């Protein structure tokens, strides 16, 4: 009983001591991530982004990170608590935080919200998405040179436009070099399920694929399977080269720093405007890196030339002619797929074998 009363007293005192943690002069920035923050992966890329904000503003900002939060009613409460604790600028790191985050944004007009991978906007609520397909296109070119079976495999999270357009970009890049190449996709419906991702990767290898693409998996699961199975492998968001020292094809990195810093600038200046932020290589958000030494110099030159063309907008990954899985022409030669059609993409290009989950 004595212990208890002491504890209770201590707890009560702590209530007085720690009540106010918010300093009016510093900007409190909150980051909510859907998976644990590891050395690599999606969540880590977001952390690197807010760290860049910290590097610029120093003591003027304070970063609060809450990791590994599942979408759902609990996430809504945690976001609510983050706002209640004084976070003025929130980065919501998963599409599952969209509806809860948007409600919160509407109630808190003076706070700024950045939301990953979504499609709804408000005055103070910007969804942000990377044009992964640009980087994946270049990876496809490299894959086309290295594949012997002409079969490429993709382990993919959710069949949302962001990921579908990335697979299509990869396929278009590969088939621009060798039109006989086909792509198989396994959808595992999770950002973070190492066991399932590995099983799927092994199944793809068993099916004859000798290049693997880990599409939005937050663990090195697929990358390690590639190394062990002797298949070249690449992934998104952050380099996982150390998990596949010999077979790492490269990385389609996302560097959120420029975008996060610009958004914080705008928030502090009072002119933040919520809009659909769709960022690619020309914004320095999508960066391709860590190319495998097995890629020939000739191919690297081709890739670099293509990269320059995409950055300068001379060419676009989704320039016509584009043919869908059913063999029907979607966009004729000389035309370009509209942004809206890419942002809402729900079809595969010719060359992808697997049907989309419908």
């Amino acid at each position, binding site marked *: 009983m004595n212990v208890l009363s002491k504890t209770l007293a201590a*707890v009560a*005192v702590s209530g007085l001591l*720690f009540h106010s943690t918010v300093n009016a002069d510093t900007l409190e920035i909150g980051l909510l991530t859907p998976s644990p923050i590891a050395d690599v992966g999606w969540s880590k890329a977001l952390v690197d982004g807010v760290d860049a904000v910290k590097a610029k503003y120093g003591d003027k900002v304070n970063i609060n990170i809450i990791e590994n939060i599942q979408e*759902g009613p609990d996430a809504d409460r945690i976001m609510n608590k983050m706002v209640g604790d004084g976070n003025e600028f929130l980065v919501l790191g998963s599409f599952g935080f969209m509806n809860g985050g948007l409600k919160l944004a509407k109630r808190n007009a003076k706070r700024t919200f950045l939301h990953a991978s979504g*499609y709804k906007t408000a005055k103070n609520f910007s969804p942000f998405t990377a044009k992964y397909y640009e980087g994946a296109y270049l990876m496809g070119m490299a894959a086309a040179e290295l594949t012997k079976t002409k079969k490429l495999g993709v382990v993919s999270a959710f069949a949302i436009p962001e990921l579908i357009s990335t697979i299509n970009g990869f396929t278009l890049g590969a088939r621009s070099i060798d039109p006989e190449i086909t792509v198989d996709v396994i959808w595992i*419906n999770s950002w973070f399920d190492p066991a399932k991702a590995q099983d799927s990767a092994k199944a793809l290898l068993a099916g004859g694929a000798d290049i693997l693409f880990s599409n939005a998996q937050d663990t090195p699961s697929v990358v390690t399977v590639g190394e062990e199975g002797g298949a070249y492998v690449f992934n998104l968001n952050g380099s996982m080269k150390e998990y596949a020292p010999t077979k790492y094809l490269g990385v389609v990195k996302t560097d959120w720093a420029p975008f996060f810093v610009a958004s914080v600038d705008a928030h502090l200046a009072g002119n933040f405007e919520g809009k659909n932020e769709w960022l690619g290589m020309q914004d320095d958000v999508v960066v391709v890196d860590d190319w495998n030494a097995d890629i020939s110099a000739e191919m690297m030159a081709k890739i670099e030339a293509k990269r320059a063309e995409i950055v300068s907008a001379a060419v676009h990954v989704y320039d016509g002619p584009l043919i869908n899985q059913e063999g029907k022409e979607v966009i004729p030669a000389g035309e370009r797929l509209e942004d809206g059609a890419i942002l809402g993409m729900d079809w595969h290009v010719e060359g992808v074998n697997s049907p989309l*989950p*419908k």
Partner: protein
Amino acid sequence: MQFKLDRRVHYSKRMLIATPVIAIALAVLVSSVLLVLLQKPVLLTFHSFFIAPFENFYSITEIFLKFGPLLLIAQALAVGFRAKVWNIGAEGQMIIGAITASAVPVYLVDSTSALLLPAMLILGALGGMGWAAIAAYLKTRFNANEILVTLMLSSIALQILYYLLLGPWKDPMGFNFPQTVMFQDEALFPALFEGVRLNTSIFIPIIFTIGIWLFMEKHFGGFKLVVGGLAPNAATYAGFSSKKAVWSSLLLAGFAAGIAGMSEIAGPIGQLQRSVTSGYGYSAIIVAYLGALNPIGIIFAAFFLAVLQIGGDVALVSADLPISAVHVFQGLLLIFYLATYTFVNYRLRIIRPLTHSNTKPTP
């Protein structure tokens, strides 16, 4: 050396009431050590867990938002557990309830009828019962173990949910995201107060609890159910059906879990999405046992667990605790509670290996 637990003939009532207090003290003590090792603020953590949930009105309403489904499911499960029907698949019954209830707003997107909500309630209850009925049928017809069946049915329920969200029920304007349309206001429980998520569905568990209490304590049917579980032979001899116990236990749990699932999608979530249960189906098992399978005890247990979960969320944000540390603390609390409870009700006896002709129990 062997250990044996003997049931105490006379146990201290005072100790029984002190049990939760001792458990909390022990959990606080052990996790304090862990927090110091993690270099996290000890006092702020416990403040987050036990004080912060009560610090403002919104937070208190959130406790009740969690309390509702926990109470509802745990009350129903406890009836089954007392009848020795081990339904651990309330999670799946909850998912199916959420699905069947969602059919209404998914197919009647434009309806503003006042009958939407009652229809969803009925469908949710029927869905949960239907799912539980599979286990009841397999148990009574083939004597299939209901622990395995209900657990595996939960996995199947989850896959059905994913199928619907990725396929026929996907929001056509939702860019292929695995979720349905947001439900219209008429398909949602009205909020109890402005600006909070707690809604009128909270009355369902309360009414249900009163019903269960009356049934178990005052009604002969409750007695029959318990006897059927404790001594099936005696029950058969007395003319009570143990099959009936299986059916009624599972249907009751399916009913409650189905409504709980419906209350989530027609409450804080407002649509059908991949995570609809918040793990209530499993947490409710803990609640049922924490409450000693007693309708009154379960009220306190559900409230306690709700506070603990809200407190855990606060600790994540305010005390910067990693989510696994939150789970460790919650786990410690439950383990210490169950241990303390056991030692109040049972005496530990150490049996030494035979050295002489007879064993002597140590005092």
